[in-house]
C-alpha cells in the first residue's frame, strides 16, 4: 500500500481544501461572506456555497423570529396620571443582514438594546396619550399596533423587522395597588349587602304573598260557606213558615211550651210557685175540674 499512501494523502488534502472552500447555510441562518474583512455577499437561501479558503471567511446570523423581553417593567403614566407598570414582549427578525451587520456589527445584544429603547419610548408615549381603561382594554390593540409600526420603521435602519409588539403585563404599582384592593373590597361589601337585603326582601315578598293567598283563600271560603249556610237558613225558614203558617196561634202555643221545657231543664233552676195556680187546682181540692194527672 505504499503507493496508495501519497494518493491517500492527496485525497485527504483535497478533502481539506474542499471542506475549506465549501460552506453550508442552514435554513435557520443567513450568511455573510467576507474577504479580508470586506463584505462580499450575503446568502439568504439555505444551501451549499463556495468560498476561497483562507482568504474569505463566513459569518452566520439567525434568520428566525427572536424574542425580546424586558427584564423589569417600565413605569409609565396614563393620561389621567395613573402610574402603570407596562411590560412588553417583542418579536423581531433580521431581514437585511448586510445592513444589520453594518449598523450593529452583527451583535445581537446591541440590536436588542436598540430595539428595546425604541419600543419603550414609543410605548410610553402611546400609553401617555390614553386613560388607564383605554390602555388596559379598549385601545390596547391600537397601542400595540402603533408601537410596532413605529418600532418597525425605526428598525429598518438596522436591517431588522419588528414582527410584533405585545403588552405582556400591565400592572399597577404597589401604592396604587393598595387602593385598588381597597376599592375592590368595598365593592364586594356593597355587593354582599345588596345580596343580603335583596334576599330579605325576596323572602318577605314570598311570605307576604303567602299571607295574602291565605287571606284570600279563607275569605273566599268564608264567602262560600256563608252562602251555603244562608241557603240552608232560607230553605229552613221557608219550610217553617209554610208549616207554622197553617195555624199561627197553635204554633205560638206549641212553641212556647217547647221553650219552657228547654228553659227549665236543670235542677239548679229554682221555681217559686204559688199553689193557687191553675196547675195545682187538683192539688188542693180533688173535686171538680179536669181529671188529675200524675202528681207528686
Amino acid at each position: 500500500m505504499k503507493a496508495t499512501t501519497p494518493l491517500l494523502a492527496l485525497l485527504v488534502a483535497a478533502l481539506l481544501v474542499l471542506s475549506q472552500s465549501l460552506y453550508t447555510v442552514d435554513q435557520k441562518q443567513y450568511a455573510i461572506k467576507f474577504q479580508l474583512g470586506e463584505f462580499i455577499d450575503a446568502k439568504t437561501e439555505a444551501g451549499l456555497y463556495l468560498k476561497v479558503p483562507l482568504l474569505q471567511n463566513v459569518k452566520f446570523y439567525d434568520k428566525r423570529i427572536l424574542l425580546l423581553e424586558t427584564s423589569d417593567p417600565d413605569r409609565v403614566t396614563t393620561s389621567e396620571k395613573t402610574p402603570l407598570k407596562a411590560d412588553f414582549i417583542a418579536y423581531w427578525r433580521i431581514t437585511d443582514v448586510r445592513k444589520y451587520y453594518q449598523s450593529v456589527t452583527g451583535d445581537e445584544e446591541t440590536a436588542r438594546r436598540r430595539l428595546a429603547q425604541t419600543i419603550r419610548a414609543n410605548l410610553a408615549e402611546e400609553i401617555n396619550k390614553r386613560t388607564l381603561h383605554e390602555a388596559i382594554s379598549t385601545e390596547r390593540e391600537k397601542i400595540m399596533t402603533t408601537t410596532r409600526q413605529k418600532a418597525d420603521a425605526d428598525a429598518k435602519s438596522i436591517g431588522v423587522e419588528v414582527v410584533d409588539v405585545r403588552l405582556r403585563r400591565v400592572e399597577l404599582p404597589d401604592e396604587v395597588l393598595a387602593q385598588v384592593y381597597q376599592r375592590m373590597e368595598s365593592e364586594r361589601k356593597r355587593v354582599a349587602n345588596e345580596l343580603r337585603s335583596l334576599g330579605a326582601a325576596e323572602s318577605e315578598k314570598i311570605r307576604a304573598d303567602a299571607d295574602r293567598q291565605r287571606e284570600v283563600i279563607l275569605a273566599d271560603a268564608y264567602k262560600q260557606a256563608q252562602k251555603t249556610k244562608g241557603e240552608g237558613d232560607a230553605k229552613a225558614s221557608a219550610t217553617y213558615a209554610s208549616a207554622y203558617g197553617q195555624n199561627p196561634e197553635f204554633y205560638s202555643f206549641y212553641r212556647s211550651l217547647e221553650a219552657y221545657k228547654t228553659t227549665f231543664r236543670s235542677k239548679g233552676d229554682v221555681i217559686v210557685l204559688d199553689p193557687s195556680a191553675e196547675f195545682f187546682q187538683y192539688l188542693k181540692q180533688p173535686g171538680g175540674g179536669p181529671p188529675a194527672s200524675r202528681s207528686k
Partner: protein
Amino acid sequence: MSLNDPQWGKRGNQNAGPPDLDEIWRNVNRRMNELFGRKREPQEGDGGGRPGGGLPLGGAGMLVALIVVIWLASGFYIVDEGRRGVVTRFGKYTETTTPGPRWHLPFPIEAVEVVDFSQVKTVEIGYRNGNPRNKIAKESLFLTDDENIIDIQFAVQYNLKSAADYSFNARKPDDVVAQVAQTAMSEVAGHSQMDFALYEGRAQIATETEKLMQAMLDRYGTGIYVQKVTLQNALPPDQVAAAFDDAVKAKQDRERQKNEGQAYANDVVPRARGQASRLLQEADGYNASVTQRADGDASRFRQILVEYAKAPAVTRQRLYLDMMQSVLGNSSKVLIDQKAGNNLLYLPLDQLLKQSGAAVAADAARPVPPETAVTVDPSRTRELSRGREAGAGR
C-alpha cells in the same frame, strides 16, 4: 451510492464530492493495478501476506468499501411514534419524515432533526410543577376591564402542526408559547369584567385565549397548534379574597332566605286551603242540618196540628200538662202560698242552689240522656236557635 435519490445528479459540481471520490477511488484502484501489477509480491500490503496478486489492492478496496458502507449506514435513523424527522440537505429543508425507520444521505450532505410532533407539551402560567398552589404571583395577576385585579392560573397544551415551521421559524419556539400565553391571557382579561372572568365566563376566557394564542403563533409561523387552554384557577387576589368569599356567602344567604320564605309559603298556603275546605264542609253540614231539622220540625208540627184540629181543647190541655210535668219534674221548686202568711218568709235560696248544684254534679257523672246529646256544640245551638227564631219571626 446515493442511487436512490433521483435529485442527486442535479446537484451540480458543488456537492459532487462523494461520487467523485468514488470514481477517483476506482480510477486509483485501476491505475494501481496497472502500475504495480508485476511488482506486487515484494510490496508489503495491509493484507498481511496474502498470496493473491490483486489482494493488497483488493484489501484496500474492501477497506474503502467498508468505510463507504459505514458512511452510508450512518444515514439510518428511526423516527419514533408521535415524532417527525425534519431533513435538511446542505442546510436546506427537503422533507418531513413520518415515524418508522428512515434513511437520509449521510453527513455532510443531509442532516435530520427529530422533533416531538403529536406529543402534547404543557406550559404552566402562574404556577409550577402541576400544582396550582405553587403560585407565581408575578405571572398570575391580570388587570381586568373594570380595573380590578384577578388571579388566573392556567395551562396551555400544545403540539405541532408543522414540524418544519417549528424547527426553522422561531428561536426557542417553546419559550414563544409561554410568552404568547401570557400576553394573550393579559389581553383577554383586559377585555373582560372581573365577575365574568371569576364565575360564568371562565370557559369563554379559555377559548378566547386559545384563539388569540393560535392567531399569534400562526403569525410568527411557529408551526405550533394550541390544543387547549385550561384555567386552573380564576380567583380574586389573596388580599381581597375574604371580601369575595363573603359576597359568595351573601349570595347563598340570599338563596337561603328565599328558601325560607318559600318554606313559609309552603306551610301557610296549604294550611289555609285546609281551613277553607273545612269551612266549606262545615257550611255544607250546617246547610243540611238546618234544612233537615226544619223539615223534621215542620213535619212534626204538621202532624200535631192535624190531631189538634180534631180535638183542640184536650190536646191543648194535654200539651200544657206535659210541659208542666217536664218542667217541674226537672227543676227544684218551692211552693209558697202567699195568701196564707207572707209576713216572715225566709227562703234560703243560696242553700237551695248549693244543694241542687250538688245534685247537678251527681247528674253529670251519669251518662248523658240522649235528648241532651244534641246540644253539645254551643255554636251550633246558637245557630240553630237563631235559625228557629228567624223561622218563628216570619
